[in-house]
């Protein structure tokens, strides 16, 4: 028995199952590559024909060197192929990056968490990417590799500068995301992640909000606030951060900060939520995060 199924619109002319970063970069060299890791975004987009794909399919899903989580005193490094399940199952990460663990916990479904990668969440560059938000709050850096002559050359850029528009980033067509790194924050930090959707699982966030800050004497410092689905790219609320920075958290400040945030963001209204509702959610999440500190 054969089930009738539609032919996929995307066609590939070349396929490689890369066994090293160098091999993957070499295959990407001419800029017409399509990178396959978990496939959870890629195969949907391919079948829906919403994006055009380079004809060279480059499978990085066996690259062990991209699957490592290394946790040092000064730096946490997540290989690009680390999955949401990997993040969720790592107790250490839950302590030093609780916002990231919360985001992984709210990510899609069990089956998708098992394959969806952190690098893919960046590469796909959705304005609503859940795992990106807590990493923006952690001042994460994205490591990109490409072949320069015969050697692999890498560059690092701040995650906040990575995105340029919906589905678009500064990653060049011949570059491979190899890692995401950040400095661990200590236990006294505030680190939260919120997202909303009609049900707890498998929802594209209507709004997501992450906040990270150091707490001392009821004051917050090194405040980072990032939001998903309120702008064409994952958004850092720098003005609201500046308003809160170094201030004593009380009811007046919370009221001012939530008003300020609602002004600072410029969400669209769409089928998932109106602009008014998105502002309302953003205010509510910031209020909840700050009220717990006050």
């Amino acid at each position: 028995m054969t089930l009738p199924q539609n032919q996929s619109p995307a066609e590939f002319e070349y396929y490689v199952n890369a066994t090293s970063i160098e091999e993957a970069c070499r295959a990407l060299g001419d800029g017409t590559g399509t990178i396959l890791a978990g496939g959870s975004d890629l195969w949907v987009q391919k079948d829906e024909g919403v994006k055009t794909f380079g004809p060279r399919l480059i499978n990085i899903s066996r690259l062990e060197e991209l699957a490592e989580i290394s946790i040092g005193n000064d730096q946490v490094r997540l290989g690009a192929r680390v999955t949401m399940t990997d993040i969720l199952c790592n107790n250490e990460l839950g302590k030093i990056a609780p916002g990231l663990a919360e985001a992984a916990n709210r990510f899609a479904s069990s089956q998708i968490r098992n394959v969806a990668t952190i690098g893919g969440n960046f590469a796909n560059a959705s304005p609503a990417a859940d795992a990106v938000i807590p990493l923006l709050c952690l001042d994460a850096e994205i490591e990109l590799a490409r072949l320069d002559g015969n050697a692999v050359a890498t560059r690092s850029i701040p995650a906040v500068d990575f995105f340029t528009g919906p589905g678009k980033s500064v990653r060049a067509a011949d570059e491979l995301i190899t890692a995401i790194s950040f400095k661990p924050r200590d236990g006294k930090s505030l680190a939260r992640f919120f997202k909303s959707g009609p049900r707890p699982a498998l929802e594209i966030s209507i709004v997501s909000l992450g906040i990270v800050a150091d707490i001392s004497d009821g004051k917050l410092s090194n405040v980072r606030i990032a939001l998903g689905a309120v702008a064409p790219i994952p958004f850092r609320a720098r003005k609201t951060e500046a308003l809160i920075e170094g201030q004593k958290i009380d009811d007046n400040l919370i009221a001012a900060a939530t008003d300020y945030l609602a002004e600072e963001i410029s969400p669209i209204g769409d089928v998932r939520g109106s602009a008014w509702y998105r502002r309302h959610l953003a205010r509510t999440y910031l209020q909840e995060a700050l009220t717990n500190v006050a």
Partner: protein
Amino acid sequence: MSLKVEIAFKLNGHAVAQEILTSASTLQVLNRDFDLAGAKLACGEGECGACTILVDGVSRNACLMAGVDLDGRDVETVEGLWESNGLDPVQEAFVKSGAVQCGYCTPGMVMQAKYLLKPGKKLSRDEVLRGLEGNVCRCTGYHKIVDAIVAVSGETS
């Protein structure tokens, strides 16, 4: 015409090889090339779980997996549960609880249950519900599905 490549992998315990289209999903490969209809196409975008299979012991949506990525993997579909011993204990539990209505979601539910169940670990209803987030039953017969998985959990084999 898309490029074809030869893949070799373990399917329900048996070594298999097949030439497939690079544009094919794992679900299409299982359905078309291996005549296995257990993993089902419903949404085709990872929302419903009807195509859930185990790959290297981990559950995933066959519709979202590139067929070429099957190469070298150890794949288990619902058909692999049968073999010569009759129904798997999870399938027995589904029958006993009346957890099968139209049956379309059942192979996916059963395979996700196989992933959730660990020998000797009793699962709570909440743990089962959480684990089934990615599986939709449009007959909405969730209670009996959860009953079945809770009942069979905690067994040692």
